[in-house]
């Protein structure tokens, strides 16, 4: 929103403070000023004149030889504007004056003498509309100086609209003036209005409101329409300066009041109405022609203004064509209303009609503005010399009046919240500057009266008063303090610290690179790799694109998609991600959760001499390490001989268990999937359920085992095992062997090939035996070997 400082000066004296400083003070106490823009207008030597003669000297493009009368003196000029006509009062820059195109000189154009330029608003430096010349009201005397009506310079403050969402009172110049006065400690001049009580003897214009929630206030007055005329120059200039076009007195005044008070106004042609107004929702789908001539599809639930049975306006958005004011309009119905912001927002967004009016209505304007704006409109109309007669009283309907509200703050409330002592007098003074009357009761309580122009949403609790006082007091004037030290220990976050532990381990010890991928799948990619998300997957109602609508149920697919984009830069890399997966299956009974934490990794290599088995076991080692550092021993991986997900191919993957609990899976990727993911290379993957590997405590509980002072001895055994059964199965078979002397069992190597019975693989283990009481003798060793042999034979296991 742009604020003209020249306009603002109508209400508050801003002399003696430079614009940048003012902008800074507003930023610090009100809302962010995003920019300061300086405007320079051309006024010196420029006159108002009337066209007394207008002769067309060429058509297409049109050229008129125009005679302008400027208070006794006439000038001749060539003018190409289509609106040049006899009787028009306009702006004339005689030779010697300066306009935006440069110095005006007397010239000869096609044999005619041109003694100056009839000016468009662009030539005066108001904006860039140059097609038509300015039209001035009739009541300006010919020959008047332009400088009597418009300033030579102005300055605009640009305020971020978003920072004013909560302040509907600031959507007009008067609101900002009120803030400026409070911030600078200067006087706020009253805004001049016509007293609407003057019309109280006239008949009431019937208004009915279906639901006061949707329309808290509706005011209107019926008037004789003003003669078609341009708006006063000052008003035209100001509208131009902040980017509005000047159209006609009526349109300009409604816009002007909106930009001044903040309240949008709408004028109906009263003769096109059925002498009553109703505010209510659309009850069915219906086409409606808005005053821009477009037919719009209105839906059930859109808030409309009705007259009789006929919708006449889309409330807060745009009037209807059927009730629009035109040149023949005799009577106006001027509307100032207050609507539920959300309704207006939804309709205006849907219709793609985001206007200055809807932008304001969206903010839930204070109902107080309804009456204010009508009074101001009539005042300006009168001042322009165009107010003749009202034919109704100011009619009002609605639940929301515009009275002050009361708030009481507990003793010391403000100083406590600020954290510094605020003198009572200072507090009441600041509040007074903002228009809040207040006083301290003997009990220490502060009684505050909230002015009606501050919306209920904005000011309704004591904390709101804290903001009002402190922003004017200055946050910079509050000395910083650190809270009193509390010795209460912080709460451990086991899952977060475990996550970081794993993150550090994989990255710093195992050279994995951590990545983040999106929380949703890409359905095209899923189709490529042949993955169908499980039932219970969560779906977005409004995905950015249809292919991103399903939330990920596993981290693997998104990681696999990264291989192709990275393979060009490195022939060998390891990636991991720690993140959430989503789905009903991970929900809790309170339905407050539908997700789980996962760790997933992939390792890719396209090196020619890379050994797949070696590669796999390196990654498996990294994964086991990650599980170990979460204080889990007994990681057990069981080969799975069925296909499951596309990357879980029979014979290529396994499930990971700790103490019989499944905690994830890992494997290698084989054809046909491999070709779909990458043209050449090896891929190892793993995925771990982070919630399942959490330790009991962040810091481990380790129990020291006493170190025997007697030596251990070791004995190697190569055990033959069926080739199509896994090492894991052999281990669990060997786990059944219990012997008091065995301290440790260690896997050394395995061998398959020549010299072995067919279908067998030899696994070599080292058994460390010893005793804490004595040095073992040969009889102990013999006894150990015998019992191991005996055990092996019960398991049908032979030695190599």
């Amino acid at each position, binding site marked *: 929103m742009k604020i003209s400082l020249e306009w603002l000066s109508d209400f508050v004296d801003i002399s003696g403070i430079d614009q940048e400083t003012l902008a800074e003070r507003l930023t*610090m*106490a009100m*809302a962010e000023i995003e920019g300061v823009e300086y405007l320079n207008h051309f006024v010196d030597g420029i006159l108002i004149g009337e066209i007394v003669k207008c002769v067309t000297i060429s058509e297409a493009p049109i050229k008129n030889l125009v005679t302008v009368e400027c208070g006794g003196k006439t000038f001749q000029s060539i003018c190409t504007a289509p609106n040049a006509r006899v009787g028009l009062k306009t702006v004339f820059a005689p030779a010697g004056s300066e306009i935006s195109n440069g110095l005006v000189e007397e010239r000869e154009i096609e044999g005619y003498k041109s003694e100056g330029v009839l000016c468009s608003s662009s030539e005066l430096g108001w904006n860039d509309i140059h097609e038509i010349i300015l039209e001035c009201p009739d009541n300006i005397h010919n020959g008047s100086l332009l400088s009597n009506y418009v300033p030579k310079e102005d300055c605009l403050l640009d305020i971020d609209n978003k920072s004013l969402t*909560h*302040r509907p009172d600031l959507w007009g110049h008067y609101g900002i003036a009120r803030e400026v006065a409070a911030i600078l400690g200067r006087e706020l001049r009253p805004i001049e209005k016509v007293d609407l009580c003057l019309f109280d003897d006239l008949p009431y214009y019937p208004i009915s409101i279906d639901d006061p929630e949707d329309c808290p206030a509706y005011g209107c007055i019926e008037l004789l329409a003003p003669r078609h005329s341009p708006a006063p120059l000052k008003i035209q200039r100001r509208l131009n300066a902040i980017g509005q076009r000047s159209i006609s007195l009526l349109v300009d005044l409604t816009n002007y009041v909106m930009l001044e008070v903040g309240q949008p106004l709408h004028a109906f042609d009263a003769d096109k109405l059925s002498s009553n107004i109703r505010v209510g929702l659309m009850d069915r789908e219906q086409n409606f022609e808005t005053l821009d001539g477009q037919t719009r599809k209105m839906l059930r639930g859109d808030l409309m203004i009705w007259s009789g049975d006929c919708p006449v306006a889309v409330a807060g958005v745009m009037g209807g064509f059927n009730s629009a004011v035109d040149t023949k309009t005799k009577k106006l119905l001027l509307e100032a209303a207050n609507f*539920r912001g*959300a309704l207006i*927002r939804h309709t205006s*967004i849907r219709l793609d009609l985001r206007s200055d009016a809807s932008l304001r209505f969206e903010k839930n304007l204070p109902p107080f503005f309804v009456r204010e704006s009508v009074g101001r409109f009539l005042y300006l109309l009168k001042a322009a010399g165009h107010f003749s007669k009202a034919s109704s009283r100011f009619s009002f309907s609605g639940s929301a009046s515009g009275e002050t509200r009361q708030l009481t703050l507990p003793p010391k409330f403000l100083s*406590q919240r*600020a*954290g*510094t002592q605020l003198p009572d007098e200072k507090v009441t003074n600041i509040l007074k500057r903002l228009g809040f009357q207040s006083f301290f009761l003997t009990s220490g309580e502060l009684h505050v009266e909230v002015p009606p122009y501050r919306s209920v*949403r904005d000011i309704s609790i004591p*904390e709101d008063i*804290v*903001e009002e006082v*402190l922003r004017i007091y200055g*946050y*910079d004037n509050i000395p*910083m*303090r*650190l*809270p009193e*030290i*509390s010795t*209460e220990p*912080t*709460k*451990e*976050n086991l899952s*977060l610290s475990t996550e*970081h532990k794993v*993150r550090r381990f994989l*990255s710093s010890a195992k*050279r994995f*690179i*951590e*990545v*983040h991928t*999106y929380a949703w799948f890409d359905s095209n990619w899923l189709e490529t790799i042949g993955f169908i998300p499980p039932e219970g997957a*969560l*779906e*977005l*109602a*409004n*995905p*950015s694109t249809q292919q991103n609508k399903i939330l990920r149920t596993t981290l693997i697919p998104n*990681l696999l998609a990264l291989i192709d*984009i*990275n393979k060009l*830069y490195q022939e060998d*890399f390891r*990636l991991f991600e720690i993140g*959430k997966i*989503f789905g009903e299956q991970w929900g809790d009974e309170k339905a*407050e*959760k*539908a*997700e789980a934490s996962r760790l997933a990794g992939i390792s890719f290599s396209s090196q020619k001499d890379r050994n797949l088995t070696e590669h796999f076991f390196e990654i498996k080692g990294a994964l086991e390490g990650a599980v170990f550092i979460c204080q889990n021993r007994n990681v057990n991986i069981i080969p799975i001989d069925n296909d499951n997900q596309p990357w879980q191919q029979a014979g290529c993957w396994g499930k990971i268990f700790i103490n019989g609990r499944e905690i994830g899976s890992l494997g290698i990727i084989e054809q046909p999937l491999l070709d779909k993911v990458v043209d050449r290379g090896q891929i190892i993957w793993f995925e771990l359920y982070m919630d399942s590997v959490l330790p009991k405590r962040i810091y481990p509980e380790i129990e020291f085992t006493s170190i025997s002072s007697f030596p251990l001895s070791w004995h190697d055994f190569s055990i033959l095992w069926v080739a199509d059964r896994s090492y894991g199965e052999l281990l669990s078979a060997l786990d059944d062997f219990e012997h008091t002397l065995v301290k440790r069992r260690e896997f050394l190597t395995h061998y398959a090939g020549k010299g072995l019975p067919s279908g067998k693989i030899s696994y070599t283990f080292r058994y460390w035996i010893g005793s804490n009481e004595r040095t073992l003798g040969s009889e102990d060793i013999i006894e150990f070997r015998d019992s191991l042999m005996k055990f092996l034979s019960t398991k049908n296991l032979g030695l190599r």
Partner: protein
Amino acid sequence: METISFNEVREAFAKEVLEAKAIDDIEKLKVKYMGRKGVFRRLQDGFDFQLMSAKEKKRFGIEFNTLKKHFEETLIEVEAKLVGDNVTLVRKIDVSLPGKDSRIGAIHPVNLVQIELEAIFQGMGFSAMTGPEVVSEFNNFDALNIPNDHPARDMQDTYWLKNGMVLRTHTSSNQVPALKKFGAPLRVIFPGRCFRYENVDASHENTFYQLEGLMVDRDISVAHLIGVMKTLLSEVFHRDDVKIRLRPGYFPFVEPGFELDIQCLLCGGKGCLTCRTGWIELIPCGMVHPMVLKHGGVDPSKYTGFAFGLGLTRLAMMKFSIPEIRLFNCGDIRFNSQFIATV
């Protein structure tokens, strides 16, 4: 052909050996005498063996070999002496060759910043809580005093799930659950991933990280908020001259609400290309709204608090000079591998 006698050769050699002062000289002598076109070769070539008797041949052979052996031994001896003078050790290993498996991986830049901030906050007595990413509409909006008709709830701002839940739009969704779980007094941070319906470009992302902080206790004031923020930022930017300022800002779950600006660290507040005004908008914050405390089961007449939201992704961009936000979720190792895992 000119014949040279053994004696001449011996004398000349003895002289030259004495003059040899460096390994290079020895090498030259080796070439001169033992080389393919060396003296010995020429000596050999200088005799016509066919003209010699067997006895003469034998004598020549003995003399030749003795002389050659003498030369070789002398050279080795002198060389060893010279080596001994100049070099004390022949390297058994070139330790400057690269070590094996020294490469380390990388931690995502957002997590790097997160780890650092968690440590700072832990030092200030804040616990950490992450909370879910898919949350109820209540926790994301209603609990935070965000009215039913607030634009943030629209489909064009928030990702809604078909089951009515939302992808949290801010880590503030943890405020009420944390208050309910732990009660007051409370000091907690919520680092985590958030989502907003946005079109992705160089400076907009639909997926980003925040770190929200919440402190609730008796008599917590704006002065405390300023104190904690200043301390925090001094730690984050490793400077004790960090200047901050508060100005009004609006967020429904705080009252009063602030935008906290930090004085630009590049230009020291003079105004530069990065900051324009000398200040950088960094942390939205404010005093916890009494409705939020009530939703969390905390009595607002006894307790007050402040909350603040740090953009972790944004902070990572500032800290590491990352110009584009969409790099964070692209999984491109040319980006990710730069953030070496050294924390």
